[in-house]
């Protein structure tokens, strides 16, 4: 098989990699870049343990091949916390005991981030749908659910406090009504 050269940006860092067209994004991350936070649970797109964001969209890294990520921007669990401080989702997961073994957690957090990025105040049904692709065998999902709801609220509050005057108040009011 012929080697392939791709250019990707992972967690803000650019990489030029020599790889093969049949190599999965999951292997590139875990083996070539030693970003082992992304997990493999099934290898066939069923468990979501390998969920990462490609150009902001949640995808299963076990189903994507090297040529498909050429020129794209990837965010993994290692890039979720910014400048050493935890993302509100990460903090909420800790506060709510939203993991036990933690193996599903990176994928779960990335799926939750993708959801909240496009839909900052999701309904319960939207959370359910947004996270449906990630399996957890330990928790029973209840604490994960609560953590995501809580983080959404925290994110909104920080967003609102950054907006002056009536616009901020209007958003706050809307969220209040949505609950």
């Amino acid at each position: 098989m012929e080697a392939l050269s791709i250019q990707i940006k992972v967690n803000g860092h650019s990489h030029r990699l020599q790889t093969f067209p049949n190599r999965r994004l999951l292997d590139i991350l875990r083996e070539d870049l030693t970003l082992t936070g992304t997990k493999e649970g099934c290898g066939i797109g069923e468990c979501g343990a390998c969920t990462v964001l490609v150009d902001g969209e949640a995808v299963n890294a076990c189903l994507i091949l090297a040529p498909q990520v050429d020129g794209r921007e990837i965010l993994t669990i290692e890039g979720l916390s910014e400048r050493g401080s935890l993302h509100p989702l990460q903090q909420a997961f800790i506060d709510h005991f939203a993991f036990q073994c933690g193996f599903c957690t990176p994928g779960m957090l990335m799926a939750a981030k993708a959801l909240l990025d496009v839909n900052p105040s999701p309904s319960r049904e939207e959370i359910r749908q947004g996270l449906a692709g990630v399996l957890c065998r330990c928790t029973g999902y209840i604490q994960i659910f609560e953590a995501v709801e809580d983080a959404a609220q925290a994110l909104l509050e920080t967003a609102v406090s950054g907006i002056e005057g009536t616009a901020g108040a209007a958003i706050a009011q809307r969220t209040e009504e949505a609950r």
Partner: protein
Amino acid sequence: MTAPFRTIGQPVGKIDGVELVTGRARYTADLQFPGSLQAVARRAGVAAGLLRHLNVEEARRSPGVVLVLTPADLPGPNLIGILPPFDQPLLAGPEIRHEGDSLALVVAETQEEAEAAASRIVAEIEPFIPLLDPEEALHADARKIHANGNLTFAKQLLKGDVEAGFAQAEVIVEDTYRTSVQDHAYLEPEAVLAVPESDGRLTVYASCQSPFHLRGHIAVNTGLPASRVKVVQPFVGGSFGGKDDAVTEMGSLAGAAALKLGRPVRIVHSRRDSFLGSHARHAAIIHLKTGAMRDGTIIARQAEILLDGGAYASESPFVVMKALIHVAGPYKIPHLRVDCRAVYTNKRQAGAMRGFGVPQVTFASESQIDALARKLGLDRWELRRHNALTVGEANATSQVFHESVGLVQTLERVKEEGDWPACLKRAHAGDNPRFKRGVGLAAMMQGISNGAEGIDVVGASVQVSQDGSVLVGLGLTELGQGSRTAMAQIAAEILGVSLEKISVRQVDTDTVHDSGPTVASRTTTVGGKAVWMAAQTVRTSLLEMAGLMLKAPAEAIELGLDHAYLRENPQAQIPLAQVATAAYWTGFPLMNLAFSRAPDAQYDHETHQGQIYIAYNYGTHLMEVEVDTWTGKVRVLRHLASHDVGKAINPLGVEGQVEGASLMGLGFAHLEEVLEENGKIRNANFADYQIPSFAERLPTRFLPVEEATSNGPFGAKGIGEPPLAGAAAAFTNAVSDALGISFRRLPITPQRILEALEG
């Protein structure tokens, strides 16, 4: 301890939380060692037969291959197991006993190369007709899967006089119940990494739950003394009883290869390998008969339990005992006779899985209690309450507890919070031709500690540094259940240290005492007691030193908020770091190793009458469901789970265990079944084997009952396993109630519901 608890009973997040949410926590497959090789086993692919010839020549010549390990290359006995005589070969042959038997191990530079080479191994197998039905396997003329025949293990429980009991009974109910094979389906498949060290020792990193068990088997099978083998347990992605035999096999093979090659060797199971090459929950056939008086008093019960153990014994003997002891349920029944057997078949072996025989027998028992209520025209809750075990009464093994029997409290809580009369009214009120509603109850109990399974000793160490920080070591493992956090809370409470100052080490067999397996919901109870004891001695040092510094007797000192202070005058205080430093320079010991030993089980081995477990967890579950009779889909509208946990060390952790175990119980009762055809698994992947997803999550509400036991730290009893059985049985009874059909086989899948409706 007179002061109110500071950490015990407080909801705290996991102490290893930051590592887990940032991706920094390393699981076995994440570890990187230079020069690591990858290995893959070639499996038999045939359920039963005789291996005539194994040709590995082409595989040896395959690109990237450095070694093909065959039985002849193994320095040891090539056998593993839980109880002697061990019966499971690492590399099988000539007899093939199930399709997942490993025949050879291919070691190559990359995973792809190892897989490609493994497929080039040619195995000439003369096939046998596989023995798949456990009842057939017991026939006198059945082919013998092992030299000693197909009966793996058999035990009997006898209490009172069961014939006399049935003669007295005014009503009798009798039925046969069946359960299917459930896979552990932890998200992290099994993995090991064996690293030969420069001093001649071998380190094996393993996703496992019983590191000392691994160490012993790896030593024997690689020909090293046990003291030259070190097993380290990195973060583990779930185990639920499963990461035992399979990982022992993988660790022994990887170890043998690594020693031969002088390079690290890694084996990471694919999901398919995990289905084929690990063990699962025993499928069961349970014949059950119960006799009662007209007023509902249960007087006699007889059970014959047959467990399908698959190709090897694994934990079958212990699962036999647990099923045997628990089939009576949490009721006072004077006359009992139980026969429980495990049998070999040509299927993947069954072993330990969360619940350990209890979910199977609880489903049967609780279904029959409902059948009895129907026959007697009695309320289902009342019937359970009427027969419920209480303090001072003899259980199935005639053991009498004088404390910590909270069954009735769990029944009461569920009745009150659930408003049982309203549930009954609601149950069929909204029925229409398509949707039917029903409500189900289940009461259960589950023994805590190894009990009849053998001696129960746990070692723990507690060490305080001069800066007042604490290091805790324990011989039992963190599998996700939150035990590190609970152990940290116990040490924090006793030493008056804040939780942030406590570290709980990963298990490494070099540094902790052999504490047996992390099973039987015993970590919090027996393990926590060891930490409690180790911390007490260090506490004494700190109290005495602080007494010298504050010029007061040690008895007048209290520890808290990282300080030592006078109980009567808290203003007189010294930071704990100063006390610890002074204690060090004065020569007080700041480290201690303690062993907690659960009271030994004492019972008659013929009848299983006597003292077996150190405590029981009791529980009651209630579920309301709505069944769609067009699709067979079931929606759980409400789920209450009440358990007597003795003392919840960390309420958040306990809730997580109850919710997670309950959902696994829903999987067992409704969704999950390993399907096999001619001894080959048909659904060895997550597309075809469905575990509950976000969509199926239960609306579980946990109602704690805390009846403390003096055998656990601060009164705590384990909770990791029991809710699984409770939720499964309540689900079954709810669906049966909704449709007016008694389901006697699990799982009750939508498909089976539709079939039952068609009659």
